[in-house]
């Protein structure tokens, strides 16, 4: 066997040179860069980050978070195409078997291909570097926000690359493995939202309340609050029962992990913070119903964003663990399925 790192590096190098880095990839990268530029300019114009000189609160973090989310969106859309045929594509081209008869191990082969897909996806982050630096220059970002969000972004792109590479080893036809990788991305990004939405429909609770009405007393000229005799039954959603379904959403993982920067009024003022607050608010149980004495109902002061976030639990590590688990499972499965000499073969599959 050849040294692990050497094998992985040669495979990744071959992969980058041969399969991924074609003309189409550069075109895609260029188009993506342009789109990111347009989005950045629109956000800058929208929040008045450049023109409103009097602003005391810089908006660099709003721009920064938008770009990072944009890279996450586009990256998770591009990564399946770049990784989803890494192994079965080589099989179809007849170059997998000739690689497998060398001294490179199946693990090195799979890891090398995964790293190549990951690197080529990270290029989409690298090309937005000038825009990210611009947002840092505007101010408003914090070192923690920048470090954590970029780290989570890189990990999430790696997770998709790993799942794509893994599925390309597990599924025989490139078309299907790419499609399944897209379905996994859709499941995590949209499926979690849909299941949360359905969950709130299921997790409804019935509750009873009494109404109250003010009766005007002609003799005194005063109105008097009188509780109704009958109770009314109604239902309401309990998102606090099903909020955890959102934990595996990559956008939620990102938002939840990034240390929030609070603007005026202790409320977040960037995309990370907005999303984090939205999801955290879902954890809150609805206020108890004043069944008996609606006439003496007084609402608490509406809590600030910081208070909500501080009083609820983070979930990003759960989501991240699920993602990393899926990625590891896919890669492990690919190593097993690609191992040579092959014992069992899927129907209709070919070796060389």
């Amino acid at each position, binding site marked *: 066997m050849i040294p692990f790192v050497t094998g992985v590096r*040669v495979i990744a*190098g071959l992969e980058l040179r041969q399969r991924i880095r074609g003309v189409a990839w550069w075109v895609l990268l260029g188009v993506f860069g342009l789109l990111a530029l347009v989005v950045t300019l629109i956000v800058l114009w929208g929040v008045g980050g450049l023109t409103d000189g009097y602003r005391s609160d810089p908006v660099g973090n709003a721009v920064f978070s938008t770009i990072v989310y944009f890279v996450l969106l586009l990256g998770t859309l591009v990564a399946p195409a770049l990784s989803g045929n890494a192994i079965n594509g080589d099989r179809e081209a007849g170059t997998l078997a000739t690689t497998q008869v060398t001294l490179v191990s199946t693990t090195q082969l799979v890891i090398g291909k995964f790293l190549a897909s990951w690197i080529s996806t990270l290029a989409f982050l690298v090309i937005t570097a000038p825009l990210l630096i611009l947002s840092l220059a505007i101010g408003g970002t914090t070192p923690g926000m920048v470090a954590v969000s970029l780290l989570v972004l890189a990990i999430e792109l790696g997770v998709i690359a790993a799942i794509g590479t893994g599925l390309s080893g597990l599924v025989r036809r490139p078309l299907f493995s790419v499609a399944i990788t897209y379905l996994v991305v859709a499941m995590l990004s949209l499926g979690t939202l849909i299941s949360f939405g359905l969950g709130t429909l299921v997790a409804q609770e019935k509750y009873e309340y009494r109404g109250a009405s003010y009766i005007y007393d002609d003799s005194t000229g005063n109105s008097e609050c009188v509780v109704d005799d009958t109770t009314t039954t109604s239902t309401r959603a309990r998102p606090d029962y099903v909020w955890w379904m959102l934990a595996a959403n990559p956008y939620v993982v990102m938002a939840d992990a990034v240390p929030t920067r609070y603007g005026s009024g202790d409320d977040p003022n960037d995309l990370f913070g907005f999303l984090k607050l939205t999801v955290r608010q879902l954890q809150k149980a609805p206020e108890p119903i004043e069944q008996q004495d609606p006439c003496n109902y007084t609402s608490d002061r509406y809590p600030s964003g910081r208070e909500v976030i501080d009083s609820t639990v983070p979930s990003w590590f759960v989501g991240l663990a699920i993602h990393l688990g899926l990625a590891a499972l896919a890669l492990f499965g690919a190593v097993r399925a690609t191992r040579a000499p*092959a014992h069992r073969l899927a129907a209709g599959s070919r070796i060389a």
Partner: protein
Amino acid sequence: MSSPYERGWVPPQQPASSTPAPGAPAPGPGVPVAAVAGVGPAAAAATPPLPLSPGEPGEPGIVVEHVGRAFGSVHAVVDASMVAPMGRVTGLIGPNGSGKTTLMLMLASLLAPDRGSIRIAGHDPVADPAAVRRLLGWMPDQLGSWATLSARTALTQTGRLYGLHKLQAAHRAAELIHLVDLGELADRPSRVLSRGQKQRLSLARALVHDPAVLLLDEPASGLDPAARVALRRTVRRLADEGRAVLVSSHVLAELDEMADTAVYLERGVTADAARIAATRVSERAWRIRTADLARDSDRLREALFRAGIPWERIEADAGGILVPVAGEARAAELLTRLVGEGIAISAFAPAVGELEHTFLDLSSGGGPA
């Protein structure tokens, strides 16, 4: 030392039992005179003629014992046993779908056999694939090449995957490009290569780590005649350097020219040595030609008749007179007699190639049970 290719085409220097008597003139073009010696042409020069059966002396490069492999209900290889000795070219012969490629894949450590054992230079490809891969070069029947990489890059990177350092790998790639004559094409993307050029690249890739055992799956398919000659030459030299070379093909004439021994595979079963030996003495047509056939025809026919060949079985075709002869010894006897009668024989060779004869004889004798 003359090239293996040239040796393949000159008459043997040391006549073996079955070689024609001296005095037989050089053959005209297109008549493989070496076939007179009975086996492969080069074999005739390098070694005494060998019976076409497994189990030759010498260190075995490949030993296969009762190997079987099924894909679901399809039994691609049922019971294959063979030996490919070091220093020899062994042909793997069988019709399409007979299991040649499946057997090759098992030898190449890509597919595990369901049963039986395989040893490549003493190593088991299932238990110790790394040891096997270090010693084994495999040229697949399907030509996979990294389309956007140049031949040089592909060979260098393959060298790296065999554990060569960068400089070593680059040096080896240059050597191989010279060996397979890809010269000026070496730095163009391999997608511009023709099929024959890709075939040569594929051979070069199989040789990157200087393997002791070589598996060539249909190496000559798609090659033009000049490239075939070059391939044959290369393959002979690789074997003469001490490697075991297993070449599969269904073009038997091509194997006839380069294989020392052969293994016959039909419906997943290899023919055993006894059956192959039986074909050795079975009758087949030999073609005889004289310098001026029109003039000598009657004399030749009479001489053949006197030699004991029934008149009605002496036939003629465009290339000469065809007579049935059973076995090499009988052929040698007949030739000696004809020459003794003063007939100017210019060609005396089997009308059907050795491998083809054996193959057809085995097939017609009823397939394996």
